[in-house]
């Protein structure tokens, strides 16, 4: 009743092709954006901003990146954290070595560095597929982290490769409080998410999906697999790189190469699987889920058992519950949380009169 397109006529192709063809979606999106841009900074505490909202946004961006590669172009990758590292260290070096480097440009350049590296490590995808490719991307994961630790030029010769992000300053305006950092992250993520959404709706996105569904068939109908696969690697790594730069500049402030380890790559992969492969919404839902779950587990363990639980057992219990929940979610909803929303939308169209 409330959520249906009845009465909304589309008279032009533009209207038919817009991102949110239904008015309720447009209104809903505007409300969500207004809520996160205007209401959240007013009501959220510093802890919420720093420890939950900013990482969720950053991981959403990384998950969008991986989703472009895995969900849309069908190339499984286990190296996303390494591309984040390239973005972080790239942005750091541009800020460090070029005087008066604008922050946003440095972030973009960091992302472009990641894109170049991503294309280089995407080259094997032209020959190998599936799990062979997944294991091959582990080469990127281990090699990049090793290189960043080993060649201390990248970290300006600091010990063990730790870098401290410079102050974030745009047009003389310092983004130094959690609220401002949150707003900056949100703005960048919102713009990039919109771009990504449009990209996957475009001819490029359709090429990716054709390659994903069957690359031989895609080649037969005239899609160049090399261009499709490498462009997917480039765009995906760019997104991961920007996420990495934000990770360093607006979230942690101090990062080291070892922080971008295989666990982080797996985390991002979890996000898109739990959220929904091949879905923008899924990237956000998955990121929120994976960031919130350990915090939620930790808090609920604490309230349930208090301090009576030995420290070691507590962390093991968290591992067990985390692993168990992942398996549970995969069994219950293998298509991810985004699928739940799609089902709910279908129900909503008829609600409250289902007949």
């Amino acid at each position, binding site marked *: 009743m409330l959520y249906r397109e009845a009465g909304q006529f589309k008279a032009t192709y533009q209207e038919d092709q817009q991102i949110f063809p239904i008015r309720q979606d447009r209104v809903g999106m505007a409300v969500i954006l207004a809520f996160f841009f205007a209401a959240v900074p007013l009501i959220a505490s510093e802890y919420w901003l720093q420890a939950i909202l900013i990482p969720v946004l950053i991981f959403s961006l990384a998950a969008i990146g991986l989703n472009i590669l*895995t969900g849309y172009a069908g190339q*499984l990758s286990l190296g996303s954290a390494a591309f984040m590292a390239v973005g972080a260290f790239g942005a750091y070096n541009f800020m460090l070595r070029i005087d008066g480097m604008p922050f946003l440009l440095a972030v973009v350049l960091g992302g472009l560095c990641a894109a170049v590296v991503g294309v280089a490590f995407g080259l*094997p995808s032209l*020959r*190998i*597929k*599936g*799990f*062979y490719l*997944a*294991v*091959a991307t*582990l*080469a990127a994961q*281990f*090699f990049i982290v*090793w290189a960043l*630790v*080993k060649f201390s030029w990248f970290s300006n010769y600091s010990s063990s490769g730790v870098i401290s992000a410079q102050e974030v300053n745009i047009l003389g305006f310092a983004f130094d409080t959690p609220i401002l950092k949150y707003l900056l992250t949100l703005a960048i993520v919102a713009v990039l998410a919109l771009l990504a959404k449009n990209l996957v709706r475009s001819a490029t996105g359709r090429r990716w999906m054709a390659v994903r569904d*069957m*690359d*031989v*068939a895609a080649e*037969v109908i005239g899609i160049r697999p090399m261009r499709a696969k490498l462009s997917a690697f480039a765009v995906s790594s760019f997104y991961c790189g920007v996420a990495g730069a934000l990770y360093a500049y607006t979230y942690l402030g101090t990062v080291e190469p070892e922080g971008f380890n*295989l666990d982080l790559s*797996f985390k991002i*992969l*979890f996000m898109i*699987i739990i959220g929904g*492969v091949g879905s923008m919404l899924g990237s956000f839902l998955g990121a929120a889920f994976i960031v919130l779950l350990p915090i939620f587990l930790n808090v609920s363990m604490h309230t349930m058992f208090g301090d009576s639980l030995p420290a*070691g*057992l507590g962390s*093991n*219990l*968290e*591992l*067990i519950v*985390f*692993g*168990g*929940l*992942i*398996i549970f979610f*995969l*069994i219950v909803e*293998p298509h991810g949380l985004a699928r739940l929303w799609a089902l709910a939308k279908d129900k909503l169209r008829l609600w409250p009169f289902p007949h």
Partner: protein
Amino acid sequence: MGFFFEVLIGGLLSGVLYALVALGFVLIYKASGVFNFAQGAMVFFAALTFVGFKELLPGWTGLEESSVVVFWLAFALALASMVVLGILTEKVVLRPLVNQPHITLFMATIGLTFLVEGIAQAIWGANVRGLDLGITDEPIEWILDSADMIVSKFDVFAAALAGILVASLALFFQYTKVGRALRAVADDHQAALSIGIPLQHIWAIVWAVAGFVALVAGLIWGARSGVQFALTFTALKALPVLILGGFTSVPGAIVGGLIIGASEKLAEVYIGPMVGGGIEGWFPYMLALFFLLVRPEGLFGEKHIDRV
């Protein structure tokens, strides 16, 4: 030249250990198409369970901890736990996920990794424990005397054990009824089903066998470096072996293990100093990667033919 051969032999022997872990992956991938990332956690779980029982048993039975009976009892109990774990995994995790995309199954096994690691440490504690198989890690004297090379006794023992294991597995697959059924399932699920081979039964058996392989690998690795959480990273050592040899080939796992082991050690000695060392983390992957550019399905993997 003696030094070169010393490094080469050391590398080949440690390659056997990689192959042992890779073998567990291959068994499960071949039979059920699942890329079981939890194999490393299973190695850890097996070794920890074995050591745990070995410590508990003297209290229960009144025997000395060093006695042979305790060793084999602990082995039997650990093996039983691995079989139960394997069957449970098949029943609880994989059966509901039949026909899902490979990536979903892969993610489920990563979830399983966390679960198994957590359970193992919750039961047995997170301390590093020693494991003594009665073989010391010292050079064999006559080789040291005659050829002036250091070849570890333990490595040779481990390689021999791995060899026996692989040979007995090969015999099991070749000559038993269950083995024949396993090969049939590996060749073609649907054809196997249609002639009355109980698929899920076979999968449970495969997981149990993989558990057995994990136990042997866990014992050898554990005796080498102590039973500790780091054992789960053996999976990462086995992955390049896997893509080099091919996901579906048992001989591939062995040959791949030898190639990776040898080249890794040689690279560490001869290339490592040029770039500042510490390259063993990524070198095997790079090697496997360049290898794949020439042969995309690994050394012995099945050639994949795409049809539109």
